[in-house]
């Protein structure tokens, strides 16, 4: 079971300070543009969702942030230090799980953690056992990791990311292969870590999960950033009112100057950026009383599909 174990020393760093700043980040592989002009800002203590369809450039962007991929242009500043392949001291304060977990199939989970502990230094044996408990693989910790299920490998990847008590945690699809209870435990773990001041960048295809845990999100599509902001602000921008009127085209003209958008869909008009009461009042004043008014609250899934053209 994934458990939140309080850190013995809560971080003293100020919440809200910028932990990660990405400016104009681009990556080309030959003639193929994988990432183009991405700007991101992640603040301390927040859970930041990084979304995009398959092949949108998420993993490449995260790879550049972690110094694993050299950018073609742009810069990454992590905990105030520029990131470059080869050597970045700030990466020692980062825990990451990028794509499928990287494991030595012949080593056990405990040996993996001991190996990382030896590499990073300052990690006690007790901490190794604590993290094994935390991610719920303590009972299988002696078994070779090659024999683990996908979900267990994922838990091991999370354990390795957590081991050195990072200030920034980058989790790329951490719930992959986990059952629903495992996913729930993962969400609780992320919330608990964020409450302790750990910043989390989290990418997932499970939008419901993202909506539940993230403070802010960025959406990348075909290598370009198409949205970034607080989840509630982005969702509010997608909210609207659906009205049924005799002449939707005429109603669109009436509301055009007031609403953020007024889109005719058959005998309906979709209005965004204007409250239902204001829509009705204006239409009645214009002699176009609506026969049906339905407030629409968009979810992250609708927003995501809209931003990414159906996730393609």
């Amino acid at each position, binding site marked *: 079971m994934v458990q939140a174990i309080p850190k013995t020393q809560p971080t003293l760093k100020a919440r809200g300070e910028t932990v990660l700043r990405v400016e104009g980040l681009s990556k080309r592989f030959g003639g193929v543009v994988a990432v183009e002009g991405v700007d991101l800002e992640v603040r301390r203590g927040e859970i930041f969702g990084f979304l995009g369809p398959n092949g949108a450039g998420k993993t490449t962007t995260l790879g*550049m942030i*972690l110094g694993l*991929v050299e950018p073609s242009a742009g810069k990454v500043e992590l905990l105030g230090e520029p990131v470059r392949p080869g050597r970045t001291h700030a990466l020692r304060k980062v825990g990451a799980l990028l794509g499928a977990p990287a494991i*030595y199939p*012949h080593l056990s989970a405990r040996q993996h953690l001991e190996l*990382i502990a030896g*590499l990073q230094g300052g990690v006690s044996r007790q901490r190794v056992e604590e993290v094994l408990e935390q991610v719920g693989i303590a009972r299988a910790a002696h078994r070779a990791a090659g024999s683990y299920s996908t979900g267990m490998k994922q838990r091991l990847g999370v354990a390795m990311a957590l081991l050195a008590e990072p200030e920034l945690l980058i989790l790329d699809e951490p719930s992959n292969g986990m059952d629903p209870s495992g996913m729930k435990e993962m969400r609780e773990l992320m919330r608990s870590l964020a409450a302790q001041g750990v910043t989390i960048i989290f990418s997932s295809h499970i939008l419901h999960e993202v909506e539940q845990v993230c403070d802010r999100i960025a959406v990348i599509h075909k290598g370009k950033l198409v949205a970034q902001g607080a989840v509630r602000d982005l969702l509010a921008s997608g909210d609207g009112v659906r009205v049924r009127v005799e002449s939707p085209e005429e109603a669109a003209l009436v509301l055009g100057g007031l609403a953020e958008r007024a889109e005719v869909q058959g005998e309906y008009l979709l209005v965004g950026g204007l409250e239902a009461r204001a829509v009705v009042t204006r239409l009645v004043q214009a002699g176009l009383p609506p026969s049906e008014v339905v407030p629409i609250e968009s979810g992250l899934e609708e927003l995501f599909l809209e931003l990414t053209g159906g996730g393609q």
Partner: protein
Amino acid sequence: MTLGILKLEADKAFRRRGAWLLLAFAAALVGLVEYLMLREQAPARHYALTLLLSREAAQSLGIFAAAILGAWTAQEYGWRTLALLFSRGTPRGAWLLARWLAMLGSLALVVAMPFGVSLTVLSFYAGGWPAQLQADGARIAATVLQTAVAGLPYLDLALFLAVVGRSVAAALGGVLGYALVLEVVIVQFWPEVGRYLPASLGEAWLSGGAGLGAELAGVVGYALAFVVLSWAVLRRQDLGG
């Protein structure tokens, strides 16, 4: 961090049961060949034959060890474990140095093994350690060292192929293909070119004593070139996929 990565690579190299089993298998093979060979020969020739067999076995096993060590390095790409290390801020140069030292230690062990095994078998025949061993100890140690140095170009070629090819097949096939086929063919059919290749340079150096001649410079030059090339590729290599 650098000490941490050195320990980590040493642990990975020397705490792997499969590698020790492979070494034990090779040792058994060398011991068997030595035993059968000495059985057919007059005792007066035993000591000289033992040293000859040890050197030949060390050279051959050194090539195979280099290929296997290259494959071991390439596995890190397949398992994506290099990303695991580098995403924690491990300097790439430190890792390359640590890996090279771990490979070198493994090669030295493989090269020393036939001398140890053969002399042990000989001691069974002779009813004790041969008397010459006391006087020859330093010379034998030098031969082990020389054989290991002569194997360096192959070891570093394996490292280079692993880094460039990121594949076990490329490292294994590349080293064995070069050392057992390409180099042999060149030495055989174009001796004027072949004399500048690692095999001929190493052989010339081993035959000429432990001098610091042009042959040694050639061997070290090849070794150094492959390490530098490996570093040039690794330092900017994309490992995020």
